[in-house]
């Protein structure tokens, strides 16, 4: 099947001072696939995602979104295309949960207009799917960490964009809600041809949900491609410096990675 190229990244370099966070990174993202980016802390995952949403600009190299240089898009235009679930956040003001999720519709609502019935419907549906409906009138400041994270996820889903970027958005959540959300996200990929790029810490979650996997280390892509090809013990050892065994598991219908005590390299 001929898939549209969503992102074309060529030789991007980004430095924090003297530290080369991204070192001539090149890759291609195709439409309608669930990409997982894995790598140790400091490998450049978050920086890379920042460049994709135009939060930062590369020092050299190009990023093309849908064939055009990403610099040609204004932030407002890009907000209708790409949504971000950030890693951490704190909100100091007592907005209600519903108000926060409704903020996800901001790029679609003209400046002085009120939300339309369509906007409100989308918000309600997402809150119901994510099971946060029951506290929609509660203040965001009163929620637990995991509950807040779900609200932030709902906000990004309400943005209803063709591309969704997750920066470790599930670290604080109970496994029940983590699976619930990743299922919703995977449905979006399958049914709406959404493109998802997720930075994940949990290799097995990545294995269960992702179509493609990108291994990053020291600002470069070590290996990338179809998960069946790329998820192997050698790559895990190269990137994470641990021994592992990888086998196909019937229950999860995917490869799974297992570790052993006392086996760090």
């Amino acid at each position, binding site marked *: 099947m001929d898939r549209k190229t969503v992102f074309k990244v060529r030789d991007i370099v980004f430095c924090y001072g003297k530290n080369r966070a991204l070192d001539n990174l090149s890759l291609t993202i195709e439409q309608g696939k669930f990409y997982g980016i894995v790598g140790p802390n400091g490998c450049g995952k978050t920086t890379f995602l920042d460049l994709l949403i135009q939060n930062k600009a590369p020092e050299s190299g190009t990023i093309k979104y849908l064939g055009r240089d990403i610099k040609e898009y204004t932030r407002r235009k890009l907000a209708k295309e790409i949504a971000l679930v950030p890693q951490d956040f704190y909100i100091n003001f007592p907005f209600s949960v519903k108000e926060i999720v409704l*903020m996800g519709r901001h790029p679609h609502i003209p400046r002085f207009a009120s939300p339309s019935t369509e906007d*409100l419907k989308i918000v309600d549906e997402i809150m119901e799917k994510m099971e946060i409906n029951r506290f929609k009138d509660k203040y965001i400041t009163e929620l637990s960490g995991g509950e807040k994270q779900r609200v932030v996820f709902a906000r990004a889903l309400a943005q209803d964009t063709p591309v969704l970027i997750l920066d470790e958005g599930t670290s604080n959540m109970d496994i029940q809600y983590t699976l619930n959300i990743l299922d919703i996200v995977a449905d979006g990929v399958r049914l709406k041809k959404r493109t998802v790029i997720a930075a994940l810490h949990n290799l097995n979650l990545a294995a269960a949900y992702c179509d493609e996997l990108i291994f990053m280390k020291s600002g470069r892509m070590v290996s990338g491609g179809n998960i069946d090809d790329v998820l192997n013990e050698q790559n895990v050892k190269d990137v994470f410096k641990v021994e592992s065994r990888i086998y196909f598991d019937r229950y999860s219908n995917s490869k799974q990675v297992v570790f052993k005590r006392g086996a760090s390299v």
Partner: protein
Amino acid sequence: MTKKDGFAPSASMRVGGQTLLLAVFLFIVVILSTGMGYLKISPFEVIRIIVSKITGNHELLNGIDTVFPYVVSEVRLPRILTAAIVGAGLSIAGAIFQGILLNPLADPYTLGISAGAAFGASIALLLDITFLGIYSVPLFAFIGAVATLFAVMFLSSFNGQASSHTLILSGIIVAAILSAGISFLKYVADEQVSIIIFWLMGSFGSKTWADVFLTLVFVSIGFSICIFFARDLNIMSLGDRSAGSLGIETNKVRVILLITASLITAVCVSVSGIIGFVGLIIPHLMRFFVGPDNRRLIPASVLVGAILLLCADTITRAVLPREIPIGVLTALIGGPFFCYIFRKRRIGRTDG
């Protein structure tokens, strides 16, 4: 859709109704305050005097003591209106600073603007600068405030970005330096120090229509700009990264609102000295009543700020036996009141 939510037409009509009610209340307070003081003037006489001034119909003045029109239009009304407008201005500035700095406890003076204005005014008072007549001190106060704003912005920007944390820190540093400077000026002033001290404590005495006009222009323009970006400010409370991903140009909005709120503050401080607590308490309080949505918070803060500062000034002018400087009064009343609401809200909250 049967459930009413905050965006259904009936709810926004309710908010509009509340705003109208507050506006009417403000009008009533203005009229009543104008009648209070050493010379008691009835509200109806006040209204007749005002209408006669506007329409030029002198027949309305029949039966009113001849000195009253002068007292109303040249002495009291300018002072009262200035107090209301300054109250409104400081409240808007407070709401904006709280929104930009992501801190419900910020106020217009967090970034050292008041220290800058105080420093400028102190210099003018110390050196007895009068080349612009009564506008000399306000002008120097204004210049001081604006210079401080730019110093703080310059200090806190890295790669053209100024985050809320660096702004607060820079503001604290600059304010500390200016505070020391003011103390030095007070020391140098020797016996003249009381002039500086009294200016700093704030006053609406002897305000003229020029003051009314000046503050009204700045506060109105500032208000319009702030309302324009109100929704952006709401979304910026999610943090820069999220707000950016929703299409907000956070840096541009932050700078525009920062300058707008600082200019409003600078004008208010240069006209009336340092009046504390208003910019902190009013938006903070109104957030409990109308919520954190700036589209509702800012208009509510404007009206309540105007009413409260006006009442405070009327109390010190017409009720208290001796006129206490308004800055002292707002701190004396505002401080304990703030402690009270702060305590009351904290009980029962589980989060930080």
